[in-house]
């Protein structure tokens, strides 16, 4: 493992290895704070290159049922915004960069400048903001520049060329291509819209383009890895962690899924 732990460094290293990066999402606090951090570390040990630390939010309007239920459970269990920093610290110690994924009001409530400083101090690499567009992000762009944090905004199949440029210009680290119109969740096919979106995004930026929404197994990951710089998986990991039974058994299922996806991103020859 290289000493450089930035998102850009990891993506560059994956590119040098001729493969896509595997990016894994889990919400902090599910099944509990301790368990979620163990799960994130287990993902890193089993082949996830970058971790997305989800902050549970009361109104997760971009999420499908699996993640909704997980974050509801996390909130009922008393998870707080500050628990995210324990996760970023543990992930960094395990050797991977941690991006916090949060709906905007949680950051706004903490104070954008204050949150950015705290995130940097806790070893976090930056923020993914699913309900913040660059047009509304002046304060966050300034704060992230000051703290050296990455900022990942999203593009969608509906994005016009003008919007793709606007969003890509504001990103630092990579551009998140939400491959299908809709909420998070597994899909049997990610379809041609993902490839089209990645190509359209590449035509306006030199930043890496990572694809999310819908990927649940190694074969799908391999398909996306043919053209994307990174494959983002969320719901499938949450589902692996959602089963009944002992946490140890669920962590084993999570490791197995991670290994399958890690195989996938390596098989997708580019």
């Amino acid at each position, binding site marked *: 493992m290289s000493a450089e732990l930035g998102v850009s460094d990891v993506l560059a290293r994956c590119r040098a290895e001729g493969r896509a990066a595997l990016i894994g999402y889990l919400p902090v606090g599910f099944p509990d704070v301790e368990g979620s951090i163990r799960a994130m570390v287990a993902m890193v040990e089993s082949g996830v290159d970058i971790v997305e630390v989800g902050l549970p*939010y*009361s*109104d*997760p*309007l*971009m999420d*499908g049922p699996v993640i*909704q239920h997980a974050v*509801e459970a996390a*909130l009922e269990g008393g998870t*707080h*915004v500050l628990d995210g920093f324990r996760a970023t610290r543990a992930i960094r110690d395990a050797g991977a960069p941690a991006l916090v994924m949060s709906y*905007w*009001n*949680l*950051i*706004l*409530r*903490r104070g954008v400048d204050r949150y950015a400083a705290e995130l940097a101090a806790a070893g976090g690499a930056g923020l993914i903001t*699913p*309900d*913040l*567009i660059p*047009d*509304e992000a*002046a304060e966050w762009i300034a704060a992230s520049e000051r703290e050296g944090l990455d900022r990942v*905004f*999203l*593009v*969608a*199949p*509906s*994005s*016009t060329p003008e*919007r793709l440029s606007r*969003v890509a210009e504001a990103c630092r680290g990579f551009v998140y291509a*939400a491959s299908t*119109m*809709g*909420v998070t969740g597994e899909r049997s096919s990610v379809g041609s819209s993902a490839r089209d979106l990645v190509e359209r995004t590449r035509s306006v930026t030199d930043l890496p383009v990572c694809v999310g929404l819908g990927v649940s197994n190694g074969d799908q990951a391999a398909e996306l890895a043919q053209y994307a710089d990174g494959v983002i998986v969320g719901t499938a990991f949450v589902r692996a962690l959602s089963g009944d039974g002992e946490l140890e058994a669920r962590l084993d299922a999570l490791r197995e899924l991670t290994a399958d996806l890690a195989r996938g991103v390596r098989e997708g020859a580019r």
Partner: protein
Amino acid sequence: MTAGRFGAFGGRYVPEALIPALEQLDEARTTAMQDPTFLAELDHLHRTYTGRPSIITEVPRFAAHAGGARIILKREDLNHTGSHKINNVIAQALLTKRMGKSRVIAETGAGQHGVATATAAALMGLSCRVYMGKVDTERQALNVARMRMLGAEVVAVEHGSATLKDAINEALRDWVTNVEDTHYLIGTVTGPHPFPEMVRDFHRIIGVEAREQVLELTGRLPDAVVACVGGGSNAMGIFHRFIEDEGVRLLGVEAGGEGLEGRHAARFASAVPGVLHGAMSYLMQDEDGQTMESHSVSAGLDYPSVGPEHAFLRDSGRAEYVYATDDQAMEAFALLCRTEGIIPAIESAHALAGALVLGRELGPDGIILVNLSGRGDKDMHTAAEWFRLVDEDEEVVPSGESEDPRATGDGRAQL
């Protein structure tokens, strides 16, 4: 910052995937509002379908309990479907067709906006799905039946607190998935730009009519205009024409629920700015920024945030905001029924409660215009329980037994 700001409030805090649809809508409504054909069609529908202009009614027997000030009601309760909601819905349904979309979705709390949307969808041949919190489908069962009769699909949302805010979350999830052929017909002056401005403009006719009507009746402008504020569409509708009339006080009445010590929806009395459902405004939230659950006896005012233009009017001092508790609202509800023979919606009863207090302050020389935003038929179940109009074990609906040998059924069919 994007366009669509009211001072620091408003904006567009939504997923990027929705931006093209919001820009399309902004373009469509801007063009439509300058297009004589659109305006003529809307005006025709308002005159021949909605029932506009709505009348005003002076209520002296009610006003006797308000320090003798003159109180005049703007009768939005007499509109088709029973509330002001139809003004906005008819206009947005016309826009939906102009944008070439064939499906509308809506959220609803009390069911008023859902019923209005189902009505407009039936009138214009649009497919319609309404999201409603499960808790609300239970307390507004009659409106669920009305929407289904009108051909709409009603989805009971069970996530989160299972009330209005969760219905909006689910509608937004539907919209981002189906935005190609679907318009999200938002029912109040909140959400991402251009909704707050557009919905206000579609309700502005309330204040335009009322201002003329009050001038004609009294020979002068009112001293104050009073309206209840949930999301705030009826209030923005009646306030907006009066904003430039500096001598006219604008008074918004929020739902005080059990009082500030208990559960309530008095955002301005308790909350700080935050982002919910695409807009920056005052928001009931905990220290982490998680949305807190609001409460009101009235489902239509039971929302933890408020339209961004109200936040601006409040901070700029142009409008004042107070709250009425459940008790105060229900007292005003009963008073209007008994003194004037008008059954208001419980939402509108909050405005009446505000007028009772304000009237005592203004005294006999005062003139108060109150927006009676809806009628109370839908609230009879709540009112019957509140005032114990039925025995504990007895159902509100009569058993329907009859001496008439030809009578069948249990009486429900007659409602």
